[in-house]
């Protein structure tokens, strides 16, 4: 009798039962489960020596010192530099994941002309031709997000050679003009809507001084700063204009309402005190508080570079507009910029790392390196009482086809200098002045500039991570209190603009693709273009919850999605990324 089919099945059954009693199925299950981890194409973190490198954060004007933990040449985590004069060892959540930004989807990778790839030489030639074709009334403008840098000097030199040109900056780029705030000696801050505990100045510096500060927040919304302030004074939108005058009266001992009297009492008990948040009324209040030019108040510094406020540029005057967009900043409303352009055939050039923002409306997009991808500079942070300068050395390898905005302008000007050479000139000028001190990130020590042997040594030290701090001005008294008014206050509602637009929490325009799931999840629930109104206000304007609408303000028109929220004050539109201003809303 031979080996039958039944025998085969019986033997196979026995084998199958036996295999279950061996490690075979379980080992195969485990091995195949982790098999995909080693497939070709699966990204593997680089391996290599763990090193510490230093740079300076460029994502906002605060200029925080950054200590990067690198594996091989790749930064894997960022942290603050202990003892750094501006950041005091602190980085904000965006700064902590700044090394992720280079991997965002929305970044510009190659030069574009009307949305189509173009060689950089052709883009340069086209922009040069557009500048040459400007008429006598047309101007060329460069919108500089952070005036006062060596790059700003490049822009000014280039524009000086043109018949009609303007070096302009966003309205909020120099909130305190040539003044800094002596936060270390201030005892009370009366804030009119300024986000003092939510990204104002250098977060680390504010936090380091928070314990000795009385913070009074005057604001219509219960913002994060209001919730953490020692006293929140809720005012009606627009009340920021009248409340400072009431506090000033109370400070002089005149009659005022109970809130203003209470605020005045706190300010008198905690001197020196300052008022911030903008407007002529706040500037006058600072004059009453005698906070300008005195320790604990507003102190002037040396390096202020005046740039024209973009809002002050005449409408319809710019033929060629070059817009530099900073890596971490939200773009300006396009309607504001469009108004400044000539009606016929303007040329807009976006020098930007991003494909959204102004790049969506630009004729030419020149991709700029992302933060950490190229050598850059951090100028004096807003609110600093002394001038400062630091370099931001690259930690990441930049992809090809990127051009530094300053390099692009240098090539437009047919200048053979390179951007690093311009930075070297700046460092050489600091060394020549022999003023101030150099704070080195690695050892946390300061050294007088006059003790540094040469400009080359200073350059080398700055490339390794260091910040130069100027000496304070010796006689700060006598400064004009009105120049530190800060951003202008809101106008009151008009028949054309019957509502008040107030800022809401701003979700970061560009965040880490990895951290966006973890960081401020609540901030992600509302998109950047959501306008929140009280249901009554919405119904009065024929809106429904979730409908599309257009918000108009003196700065421009914004397409939005309407969200009804009974927690919002009637007569108010809450919208991210906006300053206080009168506005109207209508269904799209």
């Amino acid at each position: 009798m031979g080996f039958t089919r039944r025998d085969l099945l019986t033997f196979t059954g026995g084998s199958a039962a036996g295999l279950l009693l061996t490690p075979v199925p379980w080992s195969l299950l485990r091995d195949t489960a982790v098999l995909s981890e080693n497939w070709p194409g699966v990204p593997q973190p680089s391996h290599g020596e763990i090193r510490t490198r230093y740079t300076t954060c460029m994502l906002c004007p605060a200029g925080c010192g950054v200590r990067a933990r690198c594996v091989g040449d790749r930064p894997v985590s960022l942290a603050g530099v202990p003892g750094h004069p501006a950041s005091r060892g602190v980085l904000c959540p965006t700064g902590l994941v700044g090394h992720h930004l280079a991997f965002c989807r929305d970044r510009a990778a190659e030069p574009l002309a009307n949305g189509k790839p173009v060689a950089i030489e052709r883009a340069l030639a086209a922009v040069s031709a557009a500048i040459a074709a400007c008429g006598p009334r047309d101007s060329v403008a460069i919108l500089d997000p952070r005036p006062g840098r060596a790059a700003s000097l490049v822009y000014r030199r280039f524009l000086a050679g043109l018949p009609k040109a303007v070096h302009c900056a966003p309205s909020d780029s120099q909130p305190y003009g040539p003044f800094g705030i002596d936060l270390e000696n201030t005892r009370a801050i009366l804030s009119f809507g300024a986000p003092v505990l939510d990204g104002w100045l250098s977060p680390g510096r504010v936090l380091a001084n928070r314990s000795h500060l009385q913070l009074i927040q005057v604001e219509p919304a219960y913002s994060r700063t209001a919730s953490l302030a020692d006293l929140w004074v809720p005012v009606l939108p627009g009340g920021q204009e009248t409340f400072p005058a009431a506090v000033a009266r109370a400070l002089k001992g005149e009659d005022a309402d109970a809130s203003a009297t209470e605020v005045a009492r706190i300010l008198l008990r905690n001197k020196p005190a300052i008022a911030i948040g903008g407007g002529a009324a706040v500037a006058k209040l600072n004059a009453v508080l005698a906070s300008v030019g005195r320790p604990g108040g507003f102190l002037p510094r040396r390096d202020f570079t005046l740039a024209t406020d973009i809002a002050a540029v005449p409408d319809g005057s710019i033929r060629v507009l070059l817009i530099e967009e900073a890596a971490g900043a939200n773009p300006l409303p396009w309607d504001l910029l469009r108004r400044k352009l000539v009606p016929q055939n303007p040329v807009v050039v976006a020098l930007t790392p991003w494909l959204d923002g102004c790049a969506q409306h630009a004729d030419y997009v020149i991709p700029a390196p992302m933060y950490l991808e190229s050598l850059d500079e951090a100028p004096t942070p807003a609110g600093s009482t002394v001038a400062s300068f630091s370099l931001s050395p690259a930690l990441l390898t930049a992809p090809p086809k990127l051009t530094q905005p300053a390099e692009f302008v240098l090539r437009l000007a047919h200048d053979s200098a390179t951007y690093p050479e311009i930075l070297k000139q700046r460092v050489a000028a600091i060394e020549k002045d022999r003023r101030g001190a150099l704070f080195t990130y690695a050892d946390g020590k300061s050294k007088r500039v006059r003790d540094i042997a040469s400009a080359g040594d200073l350059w080398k030290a700055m490339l390794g991570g260091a910040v130069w701090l100027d000496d304070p001005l010796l006689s700060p008294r006598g400064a004009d209190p009105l120049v530190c008014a800060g951003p202008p206050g809101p106008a009151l509602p008009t028949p054309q603009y019957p509502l008040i637009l107030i800022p809401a929490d701003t979700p970061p325009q560009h965040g880490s693709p990895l951290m966006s799931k973890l960081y401020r999840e609540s901030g992600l629930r509302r998109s950047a273009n959501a306008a929140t109104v009280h249901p009554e206000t919405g119904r009065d304007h024929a809106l429904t919850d979730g409908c599309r609408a257009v918000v108009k303000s003196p700065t421009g028109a914004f397409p939005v999605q309407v969200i009804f929220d009974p927690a919002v004050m009637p007569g108010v539109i809450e919208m991210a990324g906006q300053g206080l201003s009168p506005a109207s809303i209508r269904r799209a």
Partner: protein
Amino acid sequence: MTAFHNHRGQILFLAGLLAALAAGWCAFPVLRFERVPQPVEFSHKIHADKAGAKCEDCHSLREDGTFAGIPALDKCSGCHAQPMGTSAQEKRFIDAYVTPNREIPWQAYARQPENVYFSHAYHLKLAHLDCRQCHGAQGESDTLGPVRVERISGYSGSPHFQNMEACEDCHRQRGAANSCLACHK
């Protein structure tokens, strides 16, 4: 014959069972791994006995506490720029790596998945473990055994090094953090 015919099915089932057990317990553990030899013959014993080297002389911690792992060629070149003995292995090593200044492509005995975090510094400096507690008598071995690489997953699985169960046991005994997230991040 009659008995075989009467129990034919049971016998065949048992034969299949035994064959599978033999294959699963004896052949499979051998076939599961590919044995990859190290590029250079190395004797921990000779280096410890003759050169008086200790573990930390080559497998050191950096100043920041991270583990330097396998030493770079510089460490070897310091003594072996010229042959110190007469062995053919040493001559081959010098010709192949020291003279052309080429790093040795050592095979890792314990390559971990990327989601596993292990710090030698914690275990040496905080838990005060001795190298032998995990690595056994590896420091006294005369040869480097081949690295066993799982044919399917590509991970190494050497009996000279600890596995996850051993980690868990030790953590449990010492009352150390033993949750998944203590090591897997």
